[in-house]
């Protein structure tokens, strides 16, 4: 007993203690630590290489691991837990007016080309707006129109119907109902505008395309 106490005054700490020391140093140091540096920081006679080997084994399969970075050593998150180091924040934002109007036109007039959307809105439709709606998967590309230029059409999607709680685009209320619901002034529609009703649209062909797939 006395012998051992005396010896420890002069000899290096036991390996378990050396391992603790290396563990603390690797943990607290702001950059990876070389063996040479460990030698200089541990008490005389220590064997950091061996302590490191022990430490490395101890952390095998743990949430963090002892890894070699160049010729230095550091603690790193286990690669399979990398996803825990990400934190996703979800921000809910209202669609812009341009996007909601474009979406409404596509919903009521589908299949609908970009030129038609622009005609109805009276302003150009920005690429970003269409891309945003495509990305949200509320609209998708429909068939090409069999007209000069063969323009691509847009239609609304299943996720769109889901989001708005509709069984089909035909369930969208017509202008008459909008007016009855107070969403429209009870004013005569300007001449020439047909009462839009997805059911009786001129584009019967388009309608039939609608829920094809």
């Amino acid at each position, binding site marked *: 007993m006395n012998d051992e106490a005396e010896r420890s005054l002069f000899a290096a700490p036991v390996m378990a203690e050396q391992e603790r020391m290396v563990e*603390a140093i690797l*943990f*607290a*140091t*702001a*950059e*990876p630590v070389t063996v040479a540096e460990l030698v200089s920081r541990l008490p005389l006679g220590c064997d950091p290489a061996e302590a490191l080997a022990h430490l490395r084994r101890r952390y095998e399969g743990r949430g963090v691991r002892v890894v070699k970075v160049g010729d230095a050593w*550091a*603690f*790193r*998150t286990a690669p399979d837990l990398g996803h825990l*180091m*990400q*934190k*996703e*924040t*979800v*921000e*809910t*934002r*209202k*669609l812009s*007016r341009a*996007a*909601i*109007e474009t*979406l*409404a*036109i596509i*919903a*009521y007039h589908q299949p609908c080309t970009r030129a038609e959307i622009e005609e*109805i*809105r*009276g302003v150009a439709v920005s690429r970003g707006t269409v891309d*945003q709606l495509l990305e*949200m998967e509320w609209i998708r590309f429909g068939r090409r129109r069999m007209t000069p230029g063969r323009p691509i059409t847009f239609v609304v999607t299943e996720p769109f119907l889901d*989001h*708005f*709680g*509709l069984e089909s685009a035909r369930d*969208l*209320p017509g*202008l008459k109902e*909008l007016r009855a*619901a107070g*969403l*429209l*002034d009870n*004013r005569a*529609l*300007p001449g020439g*505008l047909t009462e*839009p009703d997805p059911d009786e649209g001129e584009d019967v062909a388009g309608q039939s395309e609608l829920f094809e797939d």
Partner: protein
Amino acid sequence: MAETDWDKPDETSVEARLAAEALIVDVEGYEGPLDLLLTLSRTQKVDLRRISVLQLAEQYLAFVDQAKVLRIELAADYLVMAAWLAYLKSRLLLPPDPTDAGPSAEDLAAHLAFQLERLQAMREAAARLMARDQKGRDFFARGLPEDVMRLRRTVWTASLLDLMQAYARIRTKDDFRPYAMDRVHVYTMEQALERMRGLIGYAGDWTDLVTYLPEGWEADPARRRSATAAHFAASLELAKRGQIEMRQGEAFAPIQIRRRPDA
């Protein structure tokens, strides 16, 4: 009295004199009368709860007297405390007055002892706190933190009502005629500038600005106002460019312009 002690050093022990001097020299070092009282109480070498407040009051008063002799400026709170302790001392020495309804001298003394004990306790607590292992000195946090990556995802949303309102808005917007200014009676600054540029070459002498108003714009008040404003703004522009000079005799007097002689 302290004064006497000071004047006749032979009568005091060297030790006491040194102690007294230490107090005087350190007067600035005390953090107020309570701190000083706490230091004085240590000379009694007893538990703070069993301290003699009477003795303490005398020590304090002696200290204040000495400070006066040495012409040391004592802050007001030291003197307030001295007055209060003198009062307390007299109350402690006199037999209690049965007609006095206020707190007894013993209560006051006990409270002072409590204050001293509490201050002493807080000092010890502070020392124990600072003696603890401290982060960054005795123990350490992770030196190489791996930052949490923050991903921001935006979810766009709209209600069916938004959708229908948007559609209703589009289908009814033709009902509204966009607001447009009636330009028939407006004379713009550009027009005035154009016009004046052609005429200014002839204005070698001071000429009233109103004479520049075009025909058909002088009579109708609305047109006259618009043309005058336009010509005035155009004159300022020309003056800025160094082509003309402007003057006005007094407020509301006619504004006159002329071509700059060197222009």
